[in-house]
């Protein structure tokens, strides 16, 4: 059972859909997290999502969302937002996998204690590599939102001294 799991979700080959994994890369290259905290790029987990989502006290997802706000807007979603079909709220391309998984784990009794999602409103999600300028500018905002949520459960990562962040592999290769 981990204290906190931070998961970036999204297809890194689909433009702004890469923002979840990109924020995870941003965090991991600047901060060192305690050993009982997981910070991972889950990419497109689909059928493997139940494995990753079970048995954590707190889970934070970072994902591209489709909402009517301006591209690059960072939005916070609660567990209820993720499992309900609230009209007007359109979540990520990874629905309904996330909703189904939460409901399944609820039934099995292994659902996380709480779940939040930091959503970044996407602009383009065609198959191509590279974020839109709006979404790229939102990375530090989304990362700050994640760190803020982490702090609420007592997780404050150490900044890495003299960190020299590089581009994630899918942009660098």
């Amino acid at each position, binding site marked *: 059972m981990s204290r906190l799991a931070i998961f970036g979700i999204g297809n890194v*080959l689909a433009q702004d859909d890469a923002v979840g994994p990109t924020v995870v890369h941003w965090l991991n290259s600047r901060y060192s997290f305690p050993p009982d905290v997981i910070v991972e*790029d889950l990419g497109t987990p689909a059928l493997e999502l139940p494995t990753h989502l*079970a048995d954590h006290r707190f889970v934070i997802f970072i994902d591209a969302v489709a909402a009517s706000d301006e591209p690059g807007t960072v939005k916070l979603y609660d567990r209820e937002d993720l499992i309900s079909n609230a009209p007007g709220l359109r979540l990520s391309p*990874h629905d*309904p996998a996330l909703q189904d998984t939460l409901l399944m784990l*609820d039934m099995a009794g*292994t659902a996380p204690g709480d779940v939040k999602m930091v959503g970044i409103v996407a602009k383009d999600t065609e198959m191509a590599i590279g974020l839109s300028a709006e979404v790229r500018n939102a990375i530090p905002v989304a990362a700050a939102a994640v760190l803020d949520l982490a702090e609420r459960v007592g997780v404050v990562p150490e900044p890495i001294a003299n960190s020299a962040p590089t581009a994630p*592999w899918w942009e660098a*290769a």
Partner: protein
Amino acid sequence: MSKRITIDPITRIEGHLRIDVEVDGGEVKKAWASSTMWRGIESMLVGRDPRDAWLFTQRFCGVCTTVHAMASVRAVEDALGLEIPPNAQYIRNIIMIAHALHDHVVHFYQLSALDWVDVVSALKADPAKAASIAESLSDWPGNSKEQMKAVQDKVKGLVGSGQLGIFAHGYWGHPAMKLPPEINLIAVSHYLQALEYQRYANQVVAILGGKTPHIQNVAVGGVANAINLDSPATLNLDRLYSMKPLLDKAISFVQKVYVPDVCAVAGLYPEWFGYGAGVKNYLSVPEFPTDGKNTKFLLPGGTIMNGDLSTYKPITGQRDEYWRKGVTEDSTHAYYKDDGPLHPFEGKTNPNFTDFQDNGKYSWVKSPRFEGHPMQVGPLANVLCGYAAGNPLMKKWTDAALSSISSIAKVQATPAMLHSTLGRHGARAVRTAVFSEIALQQWQGLVDNVVKGDTAIYYPPEFPKGTIEGVGFHEAPRGTLSHWVVIDNGKIKNYQAVVPTTWNASPRDEKGNVGPYEASLLNNPVADAEHPLEVLRTIHSFDPCMACAVHVFDPEKKRLARVKVLG
């Protein structure tokens, strides 16, 4: 009067598959399988370093990740004629086996069982009777009366709250639902247990792969798992032995729960051995190489034509000309220019979108053909080829499953009945059981080889000047996957992935021959056109993965199976 039914999308997981059927007199008379979104990912690889291709290919799709990494490194190694060390082969094999154990269990319980199981009916079950039935099927310890009662109480709580949660999308009370309440209760109980046991197989992939999805440990030339028995940071004996109990638990669930459950469901729906055969030409490739050059394999592959097992013709390896020259893709009815048929090395991906045209272009999926024939791929093809080739493990588990189904259905089940909707489920369970035996054998092989002192994991690739081409295949959970790469002066010049769902979901070809999905739906019963559960049963039995065959983005929140009944 005939009715046209459109189901879009039909997968319970991410994806874009549209099925159109024309129903007349309670039966499907015509069918179209269409993928509604373009993939076009292969063009992203052109000009890249072939050693990086596997990193990108396993991000192709939202469902099958590991398999695209394996096919990709094999394709580049094949182009180079590059051998890999025994440890690398063992490690890759264990990853592929554990991945399949996970995938198949998830498919049955989480993605398709609800086509057959009426959750609400489980409320009427007698938990003691359910426990005694389950105990008669296997000695699995998770079948007690108390456990059955606890699961029933959970379902009762859900139904009482008016929120069926995860089960809200099922077709409860549909006339095609026929299992007794006790069997429904057993199935719901195992649905929940499957969530736990699938994790063990997944953890094995993560131990060797570094993470999953999107493993990090493969490389063109082998694997990147440093082996040193004296170092805590590498693959050492502790880490090797940490996989054993995980494999044991996953194997036990497969043999004592999954296989008996599939046999029970099949035995109680015997009429479904009469539907869904479709294309009875089968294609599979050999898997789990035992030498570094991919020339010897644990399980056979090949082709079977017209459902006649005596026509079995083996495919001996990636270099076998029968395989290498046999594959083409046609785009007559797909949204591409350059209709074809074209060999994958010459394959083109130039979009040419039209509207959905019943007699023209109607899908983003191309039509792969083998020597001009549509082929069904997947566990059924894999098991039938293994059975026809006389593979002892395939024969053992197929015969055991048929005998178990016979005693429940009170009819003599034969291999010929496997050409059907239920046959695909049965074959998937057989294949998983076979893999569960091979898993431990491969694990022991790796341990023995490491203990012997062999720590080699990688032979570095060297790219020649000029053009080389290679094919990497993998008998993946959804069927035969192949990556075809042309490399020019060390850079990728062309890359084509011919994926399992493309074989099965292919539209009509230049000769007008329908693909396996389309053929399998003909003569399927449809009791209630508003709720075409029977169509879902047959399509889900293939384990469709349109996320694999196409791009998956879906900005609108859609119901899992939106059904439109048109005039």
